[in-house]
């Protein structure tokens, strides 16, 4: 009884779905006293309209037919699915590009393979790069007075070559 009161107090005092759900699961669903304070399925059915109560559905099909005639009549295009498909393709392409770049970078940072651009020692060779499903350029950057070599992928600009 005390538990019921505490649960009831907490339920009323804190309108948080998670807390309320927790209280229902932990106490109210198992407690016969609390269950007695809830309508049973049969009691609810006394008030609700049941499937068997719905008799006259003659309006439904003619109404649907009329409204379909008024608007576009073809089944809808799977817009969401299409969007998801396109997004997935872009995501996959970006992931491939990222992995390729990462592999190249990791290979490039091995001490024995690091080579300054134009030194003739091609320790790193980028065979092909794709960004967003299109071929991209690999750009090498070697800051002056530095051992560091930065490589990145860049989209090919329209009508021109990457600077």
């Amino acid at each position: 009884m005390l538990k019921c009161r505490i649960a009831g107090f907490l339920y009323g005092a804190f309108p948080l779905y998670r807390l309320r759900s927790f209280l229902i699961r932990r106490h109210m669903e198992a407690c016969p006293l609390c269950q007695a304070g809830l309508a049973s399925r049969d009691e609810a059915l006394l008030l609700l309209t049941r499937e068997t109560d719905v008799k006259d559905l003659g309006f439904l099909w003619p109404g649907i037919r009329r409204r379909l005639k008024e608007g576009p009549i073809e089944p809808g295009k799977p817009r969401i699915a299409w969007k998801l498909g396109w997004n997935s393709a872009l995501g996959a392409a970006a992931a491939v590009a990222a992995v390729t770049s990462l592999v190249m970078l990791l290979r490039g940072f091995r001490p024995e393979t690091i080579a300054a651009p134009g030194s003739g020692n091609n320790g790193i060779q980028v065979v092909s790069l794709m960004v967003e499903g299109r071929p991209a350029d690999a750009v090498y950057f070697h800051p002056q007075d530095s051992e560091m070599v930065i490589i990145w992928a860049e989209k090919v600009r329209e009508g021109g070559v990457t600077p």
Partner: protein
Amino acid sequence: MEDVQVLDIGPAAVASDFRDIVDRFGAPAMALALNILGNREDAEDACQEAFIRIFRNLDTVDSGKNFKNWVYTIIYHCALDVLKKKRKARRLFEEIKNESKGFLDPGSASLGKREKLSPEILRRLNPKEKTALSLWANEGYTTVEISEVMRCSSSTARVHLFNARKKIKIFLEKNHA
């Protein structure tokens, strides 16, 4: 099939499948809409709109998911849309009534004759509680299934159902006393 030919809603197979869906889910859809909306006219509107949405989105149905739940989700959302429209219409009507005080015949001040079917207590439940209760009592749905239809967490669905059952019990006890 005659209807389908007159309507010309696409390939015969699609049209025939759609007609089957309407026949199969018409009654449970109408029952759910009636329980949420409380009057037949609005429930008919919601049902028709729901089946039109179903028809237009048949291509997007995820075969891995429960088709019945998907149908109920659309009906639930259409019922909520009808309620929103009604609220808007009521606000507009109130504004017009206030602006034209003295010009309107008080006897004509109604939004139209609407047959009220819901018992008093159902009108005190909010639409989410009514939906949860209707799915639980009529369909035997669990809170997880209710949450799938209502697109909410199972915790939220559990609370809606609990509140609905509690309110009904209090009402029934008061009425019997």
